[in-house]
């Protein structure tokens, strides 16, 4: 049962091999949830999201057409579809980075609907870009974002966040010197800083080597077990799909397949994989 110390240490012991030069192999360190934020709802209640008729237009191009969807708390949703299908746009709108041209979006935690001020505090995003400052060190990056997210004792929080991702020893090195895999880990640490109830991943496995992907899969599993709502866009079959509870396929800005909150996502995932291969062959 996730949450017990024994299970945690067993699970953590299976983490991937260390990265070359100086990255710790994460072992029995505690997960990134860190000290309590003092919020009354614990990490175990993920955010519930409701999309009604979401449209996004760029010029005359429709990136999203009438997307209506409800994602329940604790679901792990995979968004599939090829480039230009609207996955990234949907994630950006969910993260409140982009405003929909039409439609409504609402978030609730437990029973209460959240105001926009509250929402950003509870969302963590790992985007296609690293969203990190190259000219600052790993620790400085995390301290900076910890401060912006209003976290108590930002310096301590930052240091604690570096351990589970295996970057504690590189905390004083500039992000500029990091490999792609290390940057991804740091980006994930940043996303998890404020103990988010909703995690958004935009193709998180892109650019990661097989070990990195394996580590990512395990991280997602742990977060899912803790009750966080996860929405991630994924391109193809990879390690990250282990925890997926629901798959949604987008094409041309519309939802074409949705395995639903209680359905089997693997049908949709397989369908998406087959379509991708077919399209790749056809080109």
């Amino acid at each position, binding site marked *: 049962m996730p949450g017990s110390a024994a299970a945690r240490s067993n699970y953590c012991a299976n983490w991937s091999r260390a990265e070359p030069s100086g990255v710790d192999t994460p072992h029995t360190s505690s997960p990134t949830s860190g000290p309590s934020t003092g919020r009354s709802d614990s990490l175990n209640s993920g955010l519930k999201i409701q999309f009604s008729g979401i449209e996004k237009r760029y010029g005359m191009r429709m990136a999203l057409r009438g997307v209506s969807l409800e994602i329940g708390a604790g679901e792990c949703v995979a968004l599939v579809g090829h480039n230009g299908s609207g996955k990234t746009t949907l994630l*950006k709108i969910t993260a409140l*980075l982009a405003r929909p041209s039409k439609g409504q979006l609402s978030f609730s935690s437990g029973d209460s609907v959240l105001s926009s001020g*509250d929402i950003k505090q509870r969302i963590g995003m790992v985007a296609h870009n*690293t*969203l990190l*400052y*190259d000219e600052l060190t790993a620790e400085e990056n995390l301290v900076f*974002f910890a401060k912006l997210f209003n976290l108590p004792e930002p310096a301590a929080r930052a240091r604690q966040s570096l351990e589970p991702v295996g970057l504690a020893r590189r905390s004083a090195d500039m992000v500029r010197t990091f490999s792609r895999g290390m940057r991804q880990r740091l980006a994930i640490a940043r996303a998890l800083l404020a103990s988010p109830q909703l995690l958004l991943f935009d193709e998180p496995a892109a650019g990661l080597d097989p070990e990195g992907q394996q580590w990512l899969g395990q991280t997602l599993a742990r977060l899912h077990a803790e009750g966080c709502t996860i929405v991630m866009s994924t391109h193809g079959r990879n390690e990250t799909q282990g925890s997926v509870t629901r798959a949604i396929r987008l094409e041309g800005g519309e939802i074409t397949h949705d395995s639903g909150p209680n359905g089997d996502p693997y049908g949709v995932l397989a369908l998406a994989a087959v379509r991708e291969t077919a399209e790749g062959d056809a080109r």
Partner: protein
Amino acid sequence: MSFMHSTATILAKELRTEFRSRELLGTTVVFVLIVIVLFSFTFNPTSSESRRFGPGLLWLAFLFAGSLMLQPSFLREQTNDTLAALRLAPIDPFSILAGKMAANFLFLLLVEIILLPVFAVLYNIAIFPILAPLVLVLALGTIGLATTGTVFSAVAAQARLRELLLPLLLLPVLAPVLIASTEATVGLLRDPSELSPVWLTFLTSFDVVFLTAAWLFGEYLLEE
């Protein structure tokens, strides 16, 4: 998070980034120096001529330098799309602009203060007796420069040819600042030195107008 707190955090980050490399500071100082020297070739720098042309050339040099070094302000946030990271945080979007404006202001003011003695020596102008009012004029003019420059840096970051675009947008808009600051400085260098209330009020009005405009409309530049 409170506006002041997030602005201060961003300001600290900006300053840390600038002063870590110090390349921008050094380059800007040298650039202004070059402009000042080149300008000196365009007229005969006798004492009276210097008093007439000097302040204008100095301010022109500051404006040019500003319009070049304000560029990185938002370009820097494009490298890894860190602007998105800032917008993800639960902060007032205007504090992103405000933090950068404050950082650019301090940076530019520092460049100007470094160059003031150099200017005084090269043009044989005694600035010590008028130092306090001179710094006041510098500060007021630089607020205008930093405010509009930061906003236009956000504008230019979304366009092509941004290195050329920022000066193109900034310099015409700052023409009133150039006039006011130059005239105020010339007034200070006169004998007896006088601090023109009209120009001071004008500079303050300029700053207030554009700070307000930046506050009202600047956020839109950060949206998608």
